[in-house]
């Protein structure tokens, strides 16, 4: 099973969570990133995600490998959606199992933080007023670049 994948179809969080099971593991931590209905004070109706898949898969695998090297964990996985997502949809899932909870929490946090910073995936927010815009990693709009 690959550690990092991209999916055009809905993520099955239940099945992914079960895939973390291991007799050596005493803890699992999972993170779900959901599409919310607001950002930077604006009402959001949906998101479109694009990925440069060949490089995203390589960089995602690298991040999970880094997590495995830094923290004493057993299994770590991450799945990111592409395509059009609506409010409440699961956009990204991270799961880690470990002998103890500390490493599982730390590794899950590390993976989602690095994925947001490094993996070539982009979200376009569609707003209730009909406008849309691409975002920076900190969720501020690219469109206002000239004024930054």
């Amino acid at each position: 099973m690959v550690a990092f994948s991209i999916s055009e179809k809905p993520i099955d969080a239940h099945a992914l969570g079960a895939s973390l099971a291991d007799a050596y593991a005493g803890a699992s931590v999972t993170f779900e990133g959901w599409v919310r209905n607001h950002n930077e004070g604006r009402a959001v109706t949906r998101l479109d995600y694009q990925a440069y898949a060949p490089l995203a898969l390589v960089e995602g695998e690298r991040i999970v490998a880094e997590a495995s090297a830094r923290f004493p964990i057993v299994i770590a996985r991450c799945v990111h959606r592409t395509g059009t997502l609506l409010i409440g949809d699961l956009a990204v899932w991270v799961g880690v199992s470990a002998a103890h909870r500390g490493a599982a929490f730390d590794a899950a946090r590390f993976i989602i933080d690095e994925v947001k910073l490094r993996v070539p995936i982009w979200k376009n927010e569609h707003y209730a007023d009909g406008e849309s815009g691409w975002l920076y990693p900190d969720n501020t709009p690219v469109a206002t670049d000239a004024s930054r």
Partner: protein
Amino acid sequence: MNLQILYFASLRDQAGRDAEAIVSSAQDASGLYAELKTRHGFSLDQGKLRVAINGGFAEWNAILRDGDEVVFLPPVSGG
């Protein structure tokens, strides 16, 4: 030389396409971006982007070769 260019996010919107085959004599990735920025009116400066050649991150002074696939990566926003 012949190059294949892929576009994502705001660059895709501004270029009006997700890919194109071009003929260029640009020395390196930096020169190629300058050429395409002028052609398509890209708003992002090179300093905001990273570049990938043939599926791997590359340096801006990387020498381009015939048949390369070049991707200019806008600031990412996954998660």
